[in-house]
């Protein structure tokens, strides 16, 4: 396996760059949500970043970045839900679960067929955002019927107009600077006219397993 020939410096650089992105984006998102918001929704920088990491840099990047970014989200702003006993409780690991799944979904979204091209990455962001919102809505619907808590429910039309559409718009806009960051500031460089995914090609997608 190509893992044996992996360049340690490149891997360390990759970890450092990802760590900086995760800390910076998650901090920005939870510190200034009012500046990133529109129509009651907030541009989900972490979510978009995780999808793009998976889309551009492969399965393991998406999975690991998604998992770590999700843990950070669980620390910064975990969801509180009504438990089966009617008490509201702060949960853990739901962020890690959702962003891990988002990273994987991003890595699997026609990446080979579309050769990880830039314009299609926005389609990937829109697709995974739609999946996230629809699944979230269905989960809330199911959980609310279990706990008999109706306060968290809204109609499908409201969900579409006031939740999904603004979120799609905001995430698509947020994707543009994040694509530029990922493409030109690393961890994988595509400069010099090369359109090849250097690290994935050299180290294989399983490079994280070696660390």
């Amino acid at each position, binding site marked *: 396996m190509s893992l044996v020939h992996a360049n340690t410096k490149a891997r360390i650089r990759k970890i450092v760059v990802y760590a900086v992105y995760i800390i910076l984006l998650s901090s920005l998102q939870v510190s200034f949500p009012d500046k990133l918001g529109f*129509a009651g929704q907030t541009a989900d920088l972490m979510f978009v970043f995780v999808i793009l990491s998976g889309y551009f840099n492969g399965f393991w990047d998406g999975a690991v970045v998604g998992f770590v970014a999700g843990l950070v989200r669980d620390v910064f702003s975990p969801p509180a839900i009504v438990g089966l006993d009617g008490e509201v409780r702060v949960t*853990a*690991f739901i962020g890690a679960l959702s962003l891990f799944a988002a990273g994987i979904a991003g890595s699997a979204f026609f990446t080979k067929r579309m050769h990880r091209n830039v314009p299609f990455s926005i389609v990937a962001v829109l697709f995974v955002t739609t999946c996230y919102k629809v699944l979230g809505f269905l989960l809330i619907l199911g959980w609310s019927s279990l706990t008999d808590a109706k306060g968290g429910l809204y109609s499908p039309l409201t969900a579409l107009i006031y939740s999904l559409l603004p979120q799609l718009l905001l995430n698509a806009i947020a994707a543009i600077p994040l694509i530029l960051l990922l493409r030109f500031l690393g961890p994988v460089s595509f400069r010099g006219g090369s359109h090849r995914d250097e690290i994935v090609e050299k180290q294989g997608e399983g490079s994280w397993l070696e660390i």
Partner: protein
Amino acid sequence: MKKLFKNKWFIALLVILVLTAFAVLSLVPGSPVKKLLQPVQLVTSPAQSIVKSAGDTLSDFWSAITDGIAIREENKALKEQIADLRYHLTQNEEAALRYEELKDALHIKDMFSNYDIYGASILSRESDEWFSTIRLNVGSSDGIVLEEGNSYPVLDVQMNLVGRVIETSDTESRVLPLFHEGFAVAGKVNAVNGATFMVVGDAELKRQKLCLAKDIDRDVVLEPGMQIVTSGDGGLFPEGIPIGVIETVDYSNPLEVTATIRPYSQIGKLEDVFIMIPYVEEEPEASQNAAPAGN
């Protein structure tokens, strides 16, 4: 079997199952699963504080440039106001002394005299519509000790209701904001014998920054503009904390009269908040028993 564990999709499925199990376990009261996040908190919290303060500095700098002229005008008006207030202050000082004398004499009780007030700063807010708790920079090491089933009110600097503390760790607390669909507090119209009802968060109203008033008696007359405060029913919140004003009332279904309330507190713009923690006064008997021993 070895081959299966090398399959990335199988590993992903395992991780998803483990994370789902952890998420469900985290709902169990006193679950140790949440402690697994402490190392992440140790690393990320200081980094987030740095990013936040850098962002605040940039924002202040930008405001200083853009608001320069407005600030100058405001400064001029404020100087005049200070002169006026100084005059009133000297007059009020005497009135304050009189009040203190009369307060003891008439046994006037401060509305929140049985509460300790702790100041706190907001560290982080919601990251999307579902990840929507607020994180504060005080925890059990600062005296915010929360027992299972208990909760403390959180107020803004104008003493308006912001939400309630639902979880504390050593250094941080988490607040359930007023708009959250899990939030509920007994409210009443701010008047003598004002009508009582429940004020709850609602997912549909959250995006409009509104709360819902429900369980309203159909004979009660509510009108837009009426001030709503906590009623004190239930015991978690003291009576009289301002919540907001009624915006609309819906009498279309007499069996389910509802109203929307616009909270006073602008939660999205808050930087500092206060936590109210009740304390139990020492019983007079105990102090009386102790006195003779000293004598």
